């Protein structure tokens, strides 16, 4: 008899095999019965658009809404609807129910027409204009910014450049110190010839970015994830959740070349931001100019933006009111896990509520467009 180090138990193996067969058969029915996967369902209205960028305002879901709205700045990589992937686990819906007044930027899908867009175009252009629109709509000088991942980095840069327009800053899974070796992307990006990549592609394809993310955990993300699906193929709800996430993961916009070039070279490769050496539009980004209240949130198991990339922000700013909260979640789990709904969303809402006394615009400025807070919320 051939020696095998496996101690296969005949009965267990038989049960396992039969169970798998049952699930596969049932799975056929499940897959055939799945309707269109719907995401991004929380009601919202388009309030501003510029080129491919769109600014949405979510309809408030609470009677007791905080007076200062929060603008969510998502990353250029992937789509912002990850925060509203499914209704029973939507962090945005949760925030609305907890009384936040939420705006969100949708960066759109850059194509070759956008290859020359720079980081300045995103920060001094689109982001600044979106902030101005929200300020104008609510008649406030300052609004709350909530940046996610790369969008968090944008928000940090923006808050340093335009401190007069930001009341509170919340950063979620946001990289600011790119010198860490805890995350593979931070190691790998040091050796990428970004100039050649941008010069050749113009707009870096989303599929290229996805390939990079997938090989971070090849067996888990290319194999075990799908084995896990088979395990749950008899459960339509789990399958639908899986398909929503799958849709989001591979719905990756391309990256406008020039902005990507600067982001990777100046931040990932040169780590200029945390050293206060980054220049945007000819101005130095000095993090010490951030004096507003700061809430810095990161995931302890985040393999994309490890804690070491986020933590240093609190020491880099001048804010006296600053807080750092870590949760036992990963990068995506920060927004879609049950912990996200039970712990993360309430923590953010509570923190903002405590710091959101409105500062009305100075009289005489844009009076025709000024609206009181109540009016702003009902729009």
């Amino acid at each position, binding site marked *: 008899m051939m020696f095998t*180090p*496996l*101690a*296969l*138990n005949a009965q*267990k*193996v038989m049960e*396992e*095999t039969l169970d798998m067969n049952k699930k596969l058969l049932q799975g056929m029915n499940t897959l055939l019965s799945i309707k269109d996967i719907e995401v991004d369902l929380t009601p919202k209205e388009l309030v501003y658009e510029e*080129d491919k960028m769109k600014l949405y305002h979510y309809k408030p879901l609470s009677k007791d809404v905080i007076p200062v709205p929060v603008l969510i700045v998502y990353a250029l990589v992937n789509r912002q609807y990850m925060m509203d992937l499914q209704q029973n686990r939507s962090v945005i819906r949760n925030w609305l129910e907890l009384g936040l007044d939420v705006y969100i930027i949708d960066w759109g899908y850059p194509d*070759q*027409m*956008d*290859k*020359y*867009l720079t980081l300045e*175009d995103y920060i001094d*252009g689109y982001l600044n204009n979106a902030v101005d629109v929200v300020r104008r709509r609510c008649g406030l000088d300052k609004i709350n910014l909530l940046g996610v991942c790369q969008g968090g980095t944008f928000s940090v840069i923006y808050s340093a450049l335009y401190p007069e327009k930001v009341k509170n800053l919340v950063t979620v899974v946001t990289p600011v110190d790119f010198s860490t*070796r805890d995350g*593979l992307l931070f*190691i*790998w990006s*040091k*050796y*990428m*010839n970004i100039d*050649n*990549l941008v*010069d*050749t*592609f*113009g707009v870096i394809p989303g*599929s290229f970015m996805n390939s990079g993310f997938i*090989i*971070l*955990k*090849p*067996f*888990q993300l290319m*194999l*075990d994830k799908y*084995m896990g699906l088979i395990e749950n193929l008899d459960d339509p709800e789990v399958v639908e959740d899986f398909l929503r996430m799958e849709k989001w993961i591979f719905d990756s916009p391309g990256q406008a070349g020039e902005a990507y070039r600067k982001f990777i070279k100046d931040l990932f490769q040169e780590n200029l931001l945390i050293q206060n050496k980054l220049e945007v539009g000819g101005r130095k980004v000095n993090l010490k100019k951030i004096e507003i209240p700061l809430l810095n949130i990161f995931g302890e198991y985040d393999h994309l933006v490890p804690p070491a990339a986020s933590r240093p922000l609190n020491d880099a700013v001048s804010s006296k009111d600053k807080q750092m909260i870590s949760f036992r979640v990963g990068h995506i789990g920060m927004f879609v896990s049950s912990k996200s709904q039970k712990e993360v969303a309430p923590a953010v809402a509570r923190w903002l509520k405590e710091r959101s006394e409105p500062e009305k615009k100075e009289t*005489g400025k*844009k009076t025709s467009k000024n609206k009181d807070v109540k009016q702003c919320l009902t729009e």
Partner: protein
Amino acid sequence: MMEMFTGKGKDTWQNWWQNQNKIFDLWKESMSFQNGKIFELPGIMDWFSPERFYQNWLKMMAESFKEYLKWIPDIVSKESFEQTMQKADGCWKPFTFWSSMAEKLPVKEDVEKWKGFCQSLVQNYDKMLDSYSLNFPEPVKLMLKSSVEMAGSFQQFLFNFFQPWLDYSPELRENFFRFIKGDHKACIDFLRIWYQAYQESYGKFLQIPALGLSRESFEKLASSIDSYMRYMTVYSEFFSTLYKIGYEALENLIKKTAEMAGEGKAPTTFKDFYQLWWQTNESAYLELFKTDSFAKMLGEVVDAGVEFKKNFDELLVEFFSMLPVPTKKDMDSLYKSVYQLRKALKDQVRKTEELSEMLEQLNRKEGTSES
């Protein structure tokens, strides 16, 4: 870019490899040993007919590049690179090709012997001519002497061209045999040396400045081929490294399961074993991925692929420039103009808004003072 290896593209690549083989067959014909003769360099008679030899050489190169040219238009199919990139066994195809070549390489000692033979041949021929010098008229002497000199020069050229292959052949052979015996690092070394030899011989040839009407096209074609060779080498090296780690992970898995069996904790179901298998592999690859050497290699693979795409794109743009369709170059120019115009327009709108706001404030101020 990654779409050139399946469907129609796959056939094209196969043709391309065959063409590669043709080049090296021709080379082999020139350089191989046969029946006790030193070299078959188109036959010993050709040594005294350098112009014929040169013509053969030119013909060989012309045929080779004609084949390359045939290859180029067929490649215009999309969808291929990606799928082939995903096939791990893809890297063994070029290796098989290269290794078959390595088997046919002459050993260095034989080449040294041959070099000595040629030198003595030329020297003796000179002596022979000198001994007859009084009996030949000057034009005949010049012709005879020049022929030998030309043969010598050409021999020198050939040596310079193929010298890298001869120099590296012992290492290529050694690594090839080490790999056959199970040393996976040898495969990576083999590929690196192969590319080094390529760069110092064919690579240099492809970088010769082109002349004439189709100078630009030829240069783009040469760059495209050259960058493809670099890409294939780096890509193969990359996957060889991944394969090596996979192999080590397998060994580790066997060891681990044996240990677990010894402790009475061996996996009892397929699922348990599957979990152990993928997690062992994942952690092995994670350790590799964390290293700077891997990051560097990944950077090189991406860069080599991008460089090939860039060169190949330029070649396609060159081909399509005569057709009534806008090329990427044309569109880039348009995109830039649109970007600049859009920016200028936004700037103007912003300034207009600022001015109208100032005007509004001024009017208000005047209204207030009047009242």
